[in-house]
């Protein structure tokens, strides 16, 4: 068994916004577990993909949710014709064969699920499979990376200190204007002028966070809008569909955001 299926052959495009590439490389060289913090859609997932490619490691991603149990991460016995057989979960695969395991939105998982990573993320670097009676020692290439969005945390959904303190953390935010423009231009293959307008709109919406919006418009939404406009859709409709309509249900806010969108385009 190897993890070739999880290797990335094509470089995922990533535009660095600070020293994060070097910092990640450093963390990786010591196999330090890493937390990536930042608002939704600001490039955390893309960054991990890029780093996995750069470091030539397989990348196993798990999107965490409330219903997830420890077995969903670690593995479970299944039935087959002859009896029972053990199936490694995604975390165990990465631990056993050496890869980067990326737990997306870790706070969504319940705390009794998150504790399975504790013995992996201290000097022991082991993963006990209780059901199977096996202790897996982590492959030298294994690294754990998790992400979470601190703006959206809840008391019931918060990382425990005993979990937090096992990690090093990198903070992400929406890129600076120049950088974000470059990203949109590249991702959606559009001109810088259009990309810059879309970034301008997003930045105005981010000023409304906590003043009526839970989150501002993300980089991800901008790439969607840019793609539609590139395909010839009218800009106002494209922005309504991919930005202003999804980001809020408040009709007054929708109206205001549309007026902001319209202020950026001459028709």
């Amino acid at each position, binding site marked *: 068994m190897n993890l070739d299926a999880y290797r990335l052959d094509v470089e995922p495009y990533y535009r660095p916004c600070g020293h994060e590439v070097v910092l990640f490389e450093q963390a990786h060289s010591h196999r330090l577990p890493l937390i990536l913090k930042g608002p939704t859609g600001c490039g955390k997932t893309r960054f991990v993909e890029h780093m996995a490619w750069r470091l030539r490691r397989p990348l196993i991603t798990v999107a965490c949710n409330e219903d997830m149990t420890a077995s969903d991460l670690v593995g479970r016995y*299944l039935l087959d014709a002859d*009896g029972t057989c053990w199936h490694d979960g995604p975390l165990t695969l990465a631990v056993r064969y050496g890869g980067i395991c990326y737990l997306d939105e870790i706070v969504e998982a319940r705390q009794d699920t998150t504790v399975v990573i504790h013995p992996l993320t201290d000097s022991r670097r082991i993963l006990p499979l209780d059901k199977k009676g096996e202790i897996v020692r982590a492959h030298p290439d294994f690294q754990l990376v998790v992400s979470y969005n601190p703006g959206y945390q809840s008391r019931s959904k918060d990382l425990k200190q005993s979990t937090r303190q096992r990690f090093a953390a990198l903070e992400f935010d929406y890129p600076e204007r120049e950088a974000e423009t470059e990203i949109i231009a590249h991702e959606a293959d559009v001109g810088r002028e259009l990309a810059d307008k879309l970034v301008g709109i997003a930045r*105005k919406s981010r000023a*409304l966070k906590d003043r009526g919006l839970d989150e501002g418009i993300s980089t991800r939404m901008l790439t969607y809008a840019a793609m539609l406009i590139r395909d010839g859709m009218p800009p106002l*409709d494209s922005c309504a569909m991919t930005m202003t309509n999804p980001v809020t249900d408040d009709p007054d806010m929708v109206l*205001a*955001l549309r*007026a*902001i969108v319209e202020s950026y385009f001459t028709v």
Partner: protein
Amino acid sequence: MLAEADLRRCPPTLDLAIPSLTYFLDGIAEAGVQVQRCNVASASDAPQRPIITEQVLLLPDQGVGLSDAQRYSLHLASAAHVAAHLLFSPARLPVGKLKPMGLAVISAIEDARSEQLLIREHPGLRQLFLRHSALPLSGPDLSFASLVSRLNLALLDDEYRDDNYWVNKGRDLFRARLDALDDYDSFRAIGSILANDLGQMRVRFNPQQYAVPQVYRDDNSYLWTFDQVSDQSVAEVRFQNPQPPSPPPLNEPDALPETAVTEELVVRYDYPEWDARLQMRRPDWCIVVEHRTVFVGVENQKQKNAVSRLMMSPSQHLDRKRRMRRQWEGEDIDLNAATEVLVDRRLGLAPDPRIFLRPGKAARRATILLLLDMSQSSNDYRADIGGTVLQLAKRAALMSLGAAAGTEDRVAVHGFFSNTREAVHYFRFLDPGQACNDLILRRIETAEAKYSTRMGAAIRHATALLRKEETDVRAVVLISDGAPSDIDVFHADYLIEDAAVAVREALREGIDAACVTLDPQAASYVRRIFGNGRFSIVDNAMRLGTVLRHIYARVSHGSI
């Protein structure tokens, strides 16, 4: 500038437009600004224009006779113009020796300069401004107002042609400096030159009759500070608020049963306070004076009526549907669990019989303590509310109370004000689980705002009261209109830091704390006190009820 679909959705009145205009202005100006209807008649004969005061835009209900879409677009233009000033214009410069006409011309140039700067980022706004800059049908003349409105148009519209020498001179001077728009002084110099020319042309100017020609633009009082003696009364106008109409009572209270006996209980409690400068906790530093009315011999039969009359909107309490795994019984088989049963059987182990999946309301019960900031400032009459901030806060709290009535949640309504650390008055109007009756409603209704806001002590007391509650979720939700302050404290940060410590202590005990604030300037401190995601700044007061319900729903689900 408005797309087809939006034309149909434009708010039909100014009041209904205000929420979206507030968001629009906040977004464009990247700052918290309130938008309110301006009910004040102009002091002069001139028509009313929008007014910018400290963090408030007062919008007159202009655009009578326009369609909904046109009127909304006019108000958007006003908000955009105001954003231009807030972003780019120096505020409240001293008038000095400037004559009224000089002031008017320099202001017009500043209007144009700041709009050009805004248009650089928002090119779509040029059309919006132009749409509301049409010249009057009466045709050009050589009056001051006509010349200035033509100049305004010439500065905004490249296509516009005028045959007046002065208008064209103004346009050329302005154009020549377009690449140095950031340089306020050089544009002010243009204004002075143009005003001087008008003086030589003997154009007459009557400040009593002049209003900025473009109806969407503000009266420019934002730009200047007038001395006491100045006959420009514009700046004073806005303080002549109409007398607050006495608000209708919240409810027609029914009489309590004859047998009702009440007793006022006053109890004192000592609480510590955190001194951020000394990095020290001062033990027993604040005295919270708790006021409570105890009912003796009152039946609870009245509670249902009282509360159902509070239900101004249908209950917003959401039942959180979640699938519960590993149940003894249920509608579905939990596949994971079932597989494990079979596996365990084969392995000869005793299987866990809880293999069902059941949709269920999470049996999560919440105690929410709504804490009203009753400091003096909440007595301020606000035209946009049609009452005081406190009246609005009370109404919002009672609505939440009504919405919780049909659920298992226990809601409390408390309030506080402080007068030095020795006297933090704390009112337990309604305790969690207590039946609401008319006497309680009347006490809430008549409670007066006074003195200051010692937030930390009040939060500590609320936390202490919540500690006794046994529900899954316990939370304090503060409804506030300003930063913490008290007369015996001189460092602005002191009470902010103390309140932040009080919140952190509450969270550590598993008691949630959140805040809804009506202070548009709250961004500078409220995050420090409550932390990420635990607050909401309500720029538009009329949305307080909605925002509070939203926060309430989040808090009561433990998902803050």
